[in-house]
């Protein structure tokens, strides 16, 4: 795809590319005015952001924010247990609102997708695939130089996780409420596949616990959560007889 070099703009500006990668990237920039323009735009944006004076909070807001985040973070629900526990539970959050949130999420995540994408490629005309990092300098695959773009990625990741968790929790509640409308086979298959995705999410989170800023693990976790959102959306759609 023509835009594949756009994936590396943040790495290029953060100085995270190797010498070979930088050479290839700059050669591409010379050939592609659109890429060069995009690099200039992002560089200007980062430059403007850097000139902004930090805004000192009037008081330490973190304890309050942390408390709200803890309260809002939605754990993954075991649907079978949930069904047993909440037989008389009513839906506090509208389905359309949940779906709208999920749709909004797709737009947001699409917008930051190029920032979250994975690694690019050093020149290796001989056709040999080599490990991209030297363990001596990059033992965790995460020793990239920090920069404004990287900080923006971290903030975007946290925000995306928050939105995904909320969307999943809302859709799970809807499914708990309406799951009885699915036929037995479909319900069993949906639950079985939700369990499989939950397992993938758990494993990705566990790995991220070891390497919190690993780009691949972040993208993989987000992808698994989005897949769960899609499956939940499909399942709740089926309960409305919309198929």
């Amino acid at each position: 795809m023509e835009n594949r070099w756009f994936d590396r703009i943040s790495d290029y500006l953060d100085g995270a590319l190797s010498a070979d990668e930088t050479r290839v990237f700059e050669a591409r920039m010379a050939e592609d005015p659109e890429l060069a323009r995009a690099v200039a735009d992002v560089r200007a944006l980062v430059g403007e952001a850097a000139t902004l004076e930090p805004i000192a909070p009037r008081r330490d807001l973190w304890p309050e924010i942390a408390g709200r985040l803890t309260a809002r973070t939605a754990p993954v629900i075991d649907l079978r247990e949930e069904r047993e526990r909440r037989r008389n539970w009513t839906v506090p959050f509208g389905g359309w609102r949940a779906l709208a949130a999920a749709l909004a999420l797709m737009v947001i995540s699409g917008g930051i997708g190029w920032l979250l994408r994975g690694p690019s490629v050093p020149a290796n005309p001989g056709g040999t695939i080599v490990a991209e990092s030297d363990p001596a300098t990059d033992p965790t695959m995460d020793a990239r130089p920090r920069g404004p773009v990287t900080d923006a990625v971290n903030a975007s990741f946290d925000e995306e996780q928050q939105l995904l968790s909320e969307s999943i929790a809302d859709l799970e509640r809807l499914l708990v409420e309406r799951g009885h409308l699915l036929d037995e086979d479909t319900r069993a298959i949906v639950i079985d596949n939700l369990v499989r995705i939950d397992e993938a999410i758990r494993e990705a989170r566990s790995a991220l616990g070891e390497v919190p800023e690993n780009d691949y693990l972040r993208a993989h976790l987000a992808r698994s959560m989005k897949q769960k959102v899609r499956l939940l959306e499909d399942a709740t759609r089926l309960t409305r007889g919309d198929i």
Partner: protein
Amino acid sequence: MNPHNVQPRRRDRRSWAASVVLLTLVLVVAPPAHAGDVHQTHPVKKGATLDVEHMVGTLLVQGWDRDEIQIDARLDDDERVLFQDQGRRLRVVVSSASRATERIDLELRVPSWMSVRVEGHEVDVEITDVAADVAVSVIGGDVFVEGARGRVDLRSVHGRLTVSACEGSLDLESTNEDIEVRDGSGRVRAETVNGDVRMEGLRVSDVEISTTNGDVLFDGSFEVPGDYAFSTHSGDIAIGLPRDADLSISVQTWSGSVDSAVELQAEELRQGKRYRAILGEGRGRLAVESFGGDIDFYDPKRGRSKRG
């Protein structure tokens, strides 16, 4: 006794016996009559599209070179096939008064230029020779589409999706069953949770494949420029990688192994593995990621080293 009455009685007996034999033959040879059998043909206007709604059974849609739609179905008393001509939009709705799990088999012949959209529950769908957009959304049926041109959107929760010789933009989702794509061109996005994805003989320039547990096989050509992305959580990925490919390659895995017919210098980092390479001038992009599954780049001329 009147002797004149004897002959007629004998003739009556023979006639009665012949009738019984004839009736028996009819009952054995002739199929049972269905009260609502449907065989209809309707003219259609150029550019019209078709929506089909079907609950349980089979649906065959075949394109032909006439500007007509032909509907064939065998129905019981409480079953109906409704045809609606709304100008640019045609609808065929199969319904049963009992709404039970009675299977209804429906066959349609449609103009080959006509876009077709199908929604159903437990319906096996086969669409062939329709050179236009095709969209199918079912819960439990298998779906087979051959020869479509344009957008091909297929969804099945627990049905198998098979796509053959289609050109255009393919968007395929099956939660719990396999997806197979062969001999097509254009772009493909395919996603499963627990099914395998198998793609062979393709000339596609844009591929995005994602599974959670399913395995992935890609054995096709890499176009220039092209963008190819494969990801699984615990499924294995096997990719036929021609030595003359023109690709920028990135590979990521957390705990899986990586094997390659292309000279591979695997270097394991403390946590996970990441590889990069350029084949040729690197004008295409190939990104392969598996959290825990194994990744195998094999030489398509020699075949796979691992077979799953």
